[in-house]
């Protein structure tokens, strides 16, 4: 598969866009016309090759631009990458997993050659050719987790499993939906999900934790999460909230189509072999409202979901200020016809 990488930005002039193929492969997160939290985990197995589920670690037309944006974020704020000292084994697990998956899914872009502990990694889109010794951090230009996550789309958190809980002890987080790794590092599963409303009361996190503690090697799982973002900004961190928060007040009926984005997180969770930790991959996909409505089923459904969302959820996701304008705009694309079950376009 040959990918034509977009030359685009996720800040300043926001030239991000999706090609028609990228729109079709967007992982639309609603399988029905309403939304509530659920432990919506399913086996992370490949589906249709032309979907975001075609490979287990997806690489798409935004790869090069996203890696450039990540480098900019890290230059301004190196604290977006952190790993506690006991996570080194898990860092190597993650490097292996991402290199293996990328090389297997996209052999024309990535090549991994292993001779015992002597590894050779080629990343063609980013012009990287690196020989190193697996397990010896001194043979890489930076720590293994930072090294590989500067070359992989999505945010990455590694959790340590102990005392019947999961602990967020390492991560690369630059495309987050308003949470801070620097603040949350070292927290357990309940603590870092603390600010999420409603879900605790209905036991979602208790069930999810129980499930994840028994997550098995060789059997990754995935789930979808979503929010919305004004302008195609990947870095909606709390650190920069005072910079991007004002964007939320700029939505007008005229600019909804271009300015308002549905932001979908395709999260995959992997048991790591050497460390017994779990890797959380939080891959962010953005789609503009004007792109979304080119798929009639999604236009109808998203209109209904957004219109009927409980106010606490809208508040938590930060949608309150521009929800009415967006719902009114989407209403034009909803003729009330029934929608077919499932995520995919008709």
């Amino acid at each position, binding site marked *: 598969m040959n990918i034509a990488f977009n030359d685009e930005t996720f800040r300043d002039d926001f030239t991000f866009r999706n090609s028609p193929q990228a729109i079709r492969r967007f992982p639309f997160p609603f399988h029905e016309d309403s939304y509530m939290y659920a432990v919506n985990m399913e086996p992370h197995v490949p589906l249709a090759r032309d979907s975001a589920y075609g490979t287990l670690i997806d690489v798409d037309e935004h790869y090069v631009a996203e890696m450039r944006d990540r480098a900019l974020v890290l230059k301004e704020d190196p604290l977006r990458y952190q790993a506690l000292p006991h996570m080194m*084994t898990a860092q190597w697990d993650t490097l292996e997993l991402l290199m293996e998956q990328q090389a297997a899914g996209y052999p024309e872009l990535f090549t991994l050659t292993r001779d015992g502990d002597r590894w050779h990694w080629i990343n063609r889109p980013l012009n990287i050719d690196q020989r190193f010794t697996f397990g010896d951090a001194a043979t890489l230009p930076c720590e293994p987790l930072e090294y590989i996550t500067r070359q992989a789309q999505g945010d990455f958190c590694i959790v340590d499993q102990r005392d019947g809980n999961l602990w967020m002890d390492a991560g690369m987080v630059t495309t987050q939906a308003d949470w801070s790794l620097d603040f949350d590092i070292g927290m357990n599963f309940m603590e870092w999900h603390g600010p999420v409303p409603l879900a605790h009361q209905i036991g979602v996190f208790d069930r999810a934790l129980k499930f994840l503690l*028994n997550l098995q*090697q060789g059997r990754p799982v995935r789930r979808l999460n979503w929010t919305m973002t004004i302008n195609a900004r990947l870095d909606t961190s709390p650190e920069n909230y005072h910079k991007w928060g004002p964007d939320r007040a700029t939505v007008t009926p005229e600019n909804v189509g271009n300015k308002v984005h549905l932001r979908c997180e395709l999260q995959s969770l992997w048991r790591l072999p050497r460390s*017994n930790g779990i890797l959380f991959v939080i891959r962010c996909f953005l789609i503009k409202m004007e792109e979304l409505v080119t798929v009639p089923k999604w236009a109808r459904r998203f209109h209904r979901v957004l219109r009927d969302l409980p106010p606490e959820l809208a508040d938590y996701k930060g949608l309150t200020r521009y929800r009415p304008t967006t719902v009114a705009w989407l209403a034009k694309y909803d003729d009330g016809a029934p929608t077919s079950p499932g995520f995919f376009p008709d």
Partner: protein
Amino acid sequence: MSINTEMSVRVAAITQVADQVRRLRFERVDGQPLPVFSGGAHVVVSMRDGAILRRNPYSLMSSPADSSGYEISVLAVEKSRGGSTFLHHKLKVGDTLAISQPINLFPIDQRGRKHILMAGGIGITPFMAMMDQLAREDRSFELHYAVRTRSHGAYWRELQARYGARRVHVYCDAEQLFIPTGEILGHQPLGTHLYVCGPAGMIKGVLGSAAQLGWPRQNLHSEEFLAPPPGKVFKAVLTRSGKTITVHSHQSILEAVEAAGVEAPYLCRGGACGQCETAVVGCDGALEHHDIYLEPEDKASGKKIMICVSRISGSEIRLDL
């Protein structure tokens, strides 16, 4: 979720390593590498013994970094439920078996400043893999290993040779030498973690002395595979699949369910992991809980049962399966 991730393996070697202990080496039938794993992990071995499918968990003892083969050690048990006898007397080099992916319910605490491992008898096996990992990562550890007699104790010579007598201490019942738990635990630096694997009595004893010496729960780790205890025959009605099955005296509910062709989730098959927790719809007797997973209030509620080890005192249980 029913993606089958079992691996088909061939018995590559069988070695008698001590009185009543056999080491088995497995290699993949398709020649592919086995997954690397973390010290303390086990696999569930599925054995086709005539018409019976047996599934038992065994700790992996080979180097976690070695993907060419897995090794386990099996103790010949007098009152074997079948698995141990099968592996000791029927299994031959070249036979094939299925094993699960590695599962770790007894992991190293990666934060530990120092790791103290206490093994009794065959409980040495998870520590073999753990020590390999700890040594490779240059971490501080010591092993205290209790054996009945020198000839019963597997591996103590090679462990002392490999890690030195300063790190590997052997205590032999027959020589009236016992692990001086109090002495060992009395003077360890902060951030030390203790791991125990062996007979139930030993685990209870060691954890008890650690608690007496003020060690916090967070620094104590143990693993014990509970064999499902035998009991009276009873019936199980599986309400979702509409089947009624008989659970024989030397069979667990889980085994009876599997024999009836009903799929039920499991991981440890030893009452520890919680994966096979099943809702009880009704029961005409008391539940006999043998697991170490459910909280006391869950056990008292009569609404949940771990079907890998627990039984009932009555004649019929109705399960949400």
